[in-house]
């Protein structure tokens, strides 16, 4: 097996995924290379400083106040049995069907008894004390890498400090008809250890849920029967903070037992990364680097990817490249990603492929070039990487839309970066009174411009923002969020003391308040103006039927906490977007029944909006893309790539325009997409945070508020259909 590269080993060390084999390879490098030792020492020290720094933030965990436990009764719990769900979905009790072991099963070691363990610890502690008397000041980082599998007795050297995994091995043995694993470990200078089972994929340990033991003694033996999908064991040291030194080591007893020594292994892609850069002449290039295991050669092709399917672009296509290496090519709109296929010497094995988008490409690609939209593409059955019998890609993509999109939408998938200056201008500018900090803009259907600031909610005449605004005052810490009802009658605010206040939008009178144990942050009125939902909580506050000030809250138990929630314009549908898994569900608002599920990229989505008729869902994500989905099919309609997170999005009244804010700190930009021309324009950039923007009722003006008290009105008449 080829020795992993230095970069791979270094990253495995840094990111807590170092395996035993990698650890041995790393130690071998460090033995003979002072420069590498210095490099790893830098990371080691940085880790220690970060741990020390973060630990120092919390001297003592504050106790939860009694009032908190009172809140628990008030909010109750949502129905469900997580344990049952996890057992059936995540923790299959089926047994691994392993082929016979190639070596005679070893006699399992007996677990250490308590007395033996204590005695061993005392001897060990004495040994450590004696050895540490000769400790040098500077740590030898080469020696302090964890996971040294042998010898079986502590081999402390005087020049080592910090936690150290002296020995760690995991051996399979037969237990009845099944295969169990026995784990043996010896550590030094640690308080306790944690052992968990999991899986190694592409060289990375992924913790399972079947076997976890914490607080185990510094040395000992244990055994367990692994879950069917667990083939690795990880040992991590636990130590009073600050913790210095390497912390984990991984063994793969079952992989080793089946595939000794990886002769039968499928080729693996260990790392595959890309980095874009300006290579002059208006071109953007990218370097791609890969490391594979068990591959005879690799093939690299350039192309583009839509909804996870790779399409050949044509700029670069090379076979027979080495198992580890780098290539470069020029990016354009058809060659934005690279596909790597690791090919085994064994022709019967299917190549393993991976596609990567180079870091830094989005936002750069096309900035100096003319790009043409990519036509809509329907993936065929043969061009998916997991097709049986190998991978077949069409050399020329075929464009056969199964169902033409609604002509009213006029949306064609495109990856075009804006290159046209926006035919827009700032038509008026106002200043918030008292130098207030502008946080959010709203524009009611009856033409009131509503600005949330730290002092409260400022209500302007939308026809003339230079007139003095009226204030709905906030408590000292300001409002968390402000929303205006679609029927223009109510404004709802939420403050940091969890008080939801319903205001009469016309008179400014407080109609009612609701104090809830939960923070009703990121609110939205439902279409009928009768309820307020929270995008982060899993409930809603209803306005009284006869008395709008009689606010009551209720649960929406079908929603999940680690998701964002949004209601459709017709009030019939709730969409739930997974914060970290990219899962999107369209739910019946009344019953919670799932109407449609699809996925976007697994990147945090905090900007979501429906178009005016609810047929298109815009999702702005932290990966810098704003994606448009068809809400009847879940099809991806369009992607607008940027080089910063999309922080808010909104459609105008007829959805002819869509505005969104891109956070490219230190600057922010307001973009507008024209549905008819499928062009995207930057209408404004600013060096301070721009909160959610708002269209006026006729959709030809956009309000932007900034923290330095500015209120900008942008005239978009040049963008509207003529």
């Amino acid at each position, binding site marked *: 097996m080829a020795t992993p590269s230095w970069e791979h080993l270094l990253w495995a060390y840094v*990111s807590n*995924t170092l395996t035993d084999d990698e650890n041995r390879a790393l130690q071998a490098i460090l033995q003979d290379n002072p420069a590498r030792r210095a490099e790893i*020492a830098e*990371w080691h*020290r*940085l880790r220690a*400083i970060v*741990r*020390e720094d*973060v*630990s120092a933030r*919390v001297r003592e*965990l*504050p106790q939860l106040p009694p009032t908190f*436990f009172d809140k*628990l009764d008030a*909010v*109750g*719990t*949502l129905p*469900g*049995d*997580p*344990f049952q*769900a996890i057992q059936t979905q995540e923790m299959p009790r089926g047994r691994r069907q392993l082929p016979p072991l190639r070596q005679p*099963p070893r006699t399992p070691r007996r*677990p250490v008894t308590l007395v033996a363990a204590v005695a061993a610890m005392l001897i060990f502690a004495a040994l450590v004390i004696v050895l540490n008397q000769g400790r040098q000041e500077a740590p030898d980082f080469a020696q302090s890498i964890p996971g040294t599998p042998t010898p079986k007795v502590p081999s402390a050297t005087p020049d080592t400090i910090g936690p150290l995994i002296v020995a760690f091995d995991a051996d399979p043995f*037969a237990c009845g008809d099944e295969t169990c694993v026995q784990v043996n470990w010896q550590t030094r200078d640690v308080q306790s250890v944690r052992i968990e089972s999991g899986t190694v994929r592409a060289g*990375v340990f*992924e*913790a399972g849920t079947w*076997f*976890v033991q914490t607080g185990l003694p510094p040395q000992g033996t244990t*055994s367990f029967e692994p*879950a069917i999908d667990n083939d690795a064991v990880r040992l991590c040291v636990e130590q009073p903070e600050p913790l210095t030194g390497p912390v984990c080591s991984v063994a793969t007893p079952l992989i080793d037992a089946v595939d000794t020594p990886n002769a039968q292994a499928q080729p693996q892609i260990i*790392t595959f*990364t890309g*980095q874009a850069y300006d290579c002059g002449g208006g071109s953007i290039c990218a370097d791609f680097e890969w490391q594979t295991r068990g591959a005879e050669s690799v093939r690299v092709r350039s192309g583009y990817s839509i909804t996870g399917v790779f399409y050949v672009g044509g700029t670069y296509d090379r076979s027979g490249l080495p198992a580890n290496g780098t290539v470069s090519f020029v990016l354009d709109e058809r060659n934005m990603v690279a596909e790597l296929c690791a090919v085994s010497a064994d022709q019967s094995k299917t190549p393993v492929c991976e596609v990567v988008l180079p*870091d830094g490409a989005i936002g750069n690609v096309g900035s100096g070039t003319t790009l043409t939209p990519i036509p809509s593409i329907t993936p065929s059955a043969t061009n998916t990487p997991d097709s049986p019998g190998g991978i077949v890609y069409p050399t020329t993509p075929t464009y056969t839309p199964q169902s033409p999109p609604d002509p009213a939408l006029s949306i064609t998938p495109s990856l075009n970066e804006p290159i046209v200056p926006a035919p827009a201008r700032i038509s008026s500018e106002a200043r918030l009174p008292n130098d207030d900090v502008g*946080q959010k803009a709203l524009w009611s259907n009856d033409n009131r411009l509503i600005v949330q600031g*730290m002092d409260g909610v400022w209500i302007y005449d939308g026809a003339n923002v230079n007139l003095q605004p009226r204030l709905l005052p906030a408590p000292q810490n*300001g409002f*968390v*969020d402000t929303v205006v009802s679609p029927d223009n009658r109510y404004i709802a605010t939420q403050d*940091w003391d969890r008080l939801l206040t319903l205001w009469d939008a016309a008179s400014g009178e407080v109609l009612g308040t609701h104090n809830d144990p*939960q923070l009703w942050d*990121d609110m939205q009125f439902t279409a009928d103006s009768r309820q307020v939902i929270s995008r*982060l909580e*899993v409930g809603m506050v209803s306005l009284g039927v006869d008395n709008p000030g009689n606010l009551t809250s209720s649960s929406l138990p079908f929603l*999940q*906490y680690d998701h*964002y929630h949004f209601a459709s314009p017709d009030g019939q549908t709730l969409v739930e977007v997974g914060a*970290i898994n990219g899962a999107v569900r369209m739910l019946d608002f009344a019953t919670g029944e799932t109407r449609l599920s699809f996925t976007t990229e697994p*990147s*945090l989505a905090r900007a979501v909006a429906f178009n005016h008729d609810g047929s298109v869902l815009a999702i702005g994500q*932290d*990966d810098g893309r704003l994606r448009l989905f068809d809400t009847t099919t879940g099809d991806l309609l369009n992607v607008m790539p940027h080089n910063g997170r999309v*922080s808010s999005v909104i459609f105008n009244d007829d959805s002819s325009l869509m505005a969104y804010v891109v956070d490219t*700190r230190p600057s922010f930009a307001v973009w507008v997409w024209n549905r008819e021309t499928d062009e995207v324009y930057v209408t404004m950039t600013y060096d301070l945070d721009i909160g959610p923007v708002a269209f006026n009722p006729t959709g030809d003006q956009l309000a932007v508020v900034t*923290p330095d008290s500015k209120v900008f009105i942008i005239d978009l008449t040049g963008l509207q259909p003529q």
Partner: protein
Amino acid sequence: MSQQSVAPAMTPTPDPDLFLIRAMAQGDKAALDELYQRHGRSILSYLIGQLNDQQIAEEVLQDVMLAAWRGAGGFRGESKVKTWLLAIARLKSLNVIRRRKPDGAMLHDNIAAEDTGLMKKVEINADRERVRQALTELPDDQRETLELIFFHDMSGPEAARLLGISPGTVKSRVHRAKNTLRGLLLRREAE
């Protein structure tokens, strides 16, 4: 091998926090308190890093625990319990951040740094305080990624999932964070 010679297998145990989540779903407040004792400090450290305000972080921590209490019944075990708590904490803190007065100082990502020996120099001088100060000046995304890997012991893929980015981006952020620190320290050296 006879079964008698086999060491008694420990009862396979799932993530020990799962039992707490189940108990919480059934209304056991003590389980919530135990979960808080196990992970409260870690989550609070994360929140302080995100919010840079101890008092607000403690308030948000209570919101996180309240959300965990309510949502325990719907926990699907797609991640470790601690990762789930961190995900809720992240959402809560991001929502707070977007509504707060912006900080004055915002840093560019790409502070050039060529002197690879500076970290070494700092290490020799044991000048941790300056590094610690520089850590506070890291761009938020770099500092957060660094903390997830180095403090919360997440692997690259785990951190990628929580942050909603690719493992390659985690890697580049960590490397950029180190380069940014170098740049910050170099700048201090020059001043």
